[in-house]
């Protein structure tokens, strides 16, 4: 089975399991008493945010190795991860305001966490545009690698921004040094969702990587 077909199957399984996440989150996970049903946005928003950030870390790591080794597989992977990261960042930036409005009373505020996440999204867009803007693919890959490495260094700042600055955005309740402060059933739903987003990331990146490979073969033919 080719990488494209493997990626397609992984994506299909991921999307089917996403329906399971929806069912579990909406019908079988308790409503949080203070925030109400809007708190359930957490089960999509946070896994999407984790993979939007992880995708950029992987873009950065692949870019570092690409600059040293010049292996086109690393560049291909970085480009695929950046495109998928953009999709997850778009989910974060749309579900975030939909959660913020009923809880904070505003769709958006220019605090450190929200602004740095928006910057991550713009970095992804810039990365993808830069790849297409440079005619020489090798040169475009090198420029994009430098931008990818810059993006990687933004990720720890995004994560720590809620500790370093006074923000409206709450501090992590699962990914923190102490034990998660989320009740058992809610934590299980969140972990299930994180697993499904992980599967979707792998499925999407596999397909996107295979598409790049096909395009390169066509260009050389």
């Amino acid at each position, binding site marked *: 089975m080719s990488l494209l077909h493997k990626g397609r199957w992984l994506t299909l399984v991921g999307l089917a399991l996403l329906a399971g996440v929806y069912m579990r989150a909406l019908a079988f996970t308790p409503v949080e008493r203070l925030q*109400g*049903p809007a708190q359930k*946005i957490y089960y*999509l928003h946070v896994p999407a945010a984790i993979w939007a950030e992880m995708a950029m870390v992987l873009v950065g790591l692949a870019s570092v190795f690409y600059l040293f080794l010049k292996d086109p597989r690393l560049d291909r992977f970085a480009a695929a991860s950046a495109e998928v990261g953009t999709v997850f960042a778009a989910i974060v930036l749309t579900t975030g305001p939909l959660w913020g409005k009923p809880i904070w009373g505003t769709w958006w505020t220019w605090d450190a966490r929200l602004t740095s996440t928006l910057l991550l999204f713009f970095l992804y867009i810039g990365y993808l545009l830069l790849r297409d803007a440079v005619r020489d693919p090798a040169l475009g890959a090198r420029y994009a690698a430098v931008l990818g490495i810059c993006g990687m260094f933004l990720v720890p700042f995004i994560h720590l921004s809620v500790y370093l600055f006074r923000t409206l955005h709450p501090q992590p309740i699962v990914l923190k040094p102490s034990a998660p402060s989320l009740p058992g059933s809610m934590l299980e739903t969140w972990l299930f969702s994180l697993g499904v987003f992980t599967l979707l990331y792998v499925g999407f990146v596999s397909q996107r990587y*295979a598409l790049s490979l096909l395009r390169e073969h066509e260009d050389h033919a």
Partner: protein
Amino acid sequence: MPEVPHNAGYMAAAYIVTAVILLGYAFSLYRRSTRR
């Protein structure tokens, strides 16, 4: 005890938007692979 807020509309919107983005991207990848 305070009443649970009525904000299910925001939750529904977020779940719909997420599904549209993910399904849209999956379809875009499928289209790009079958156009060749």
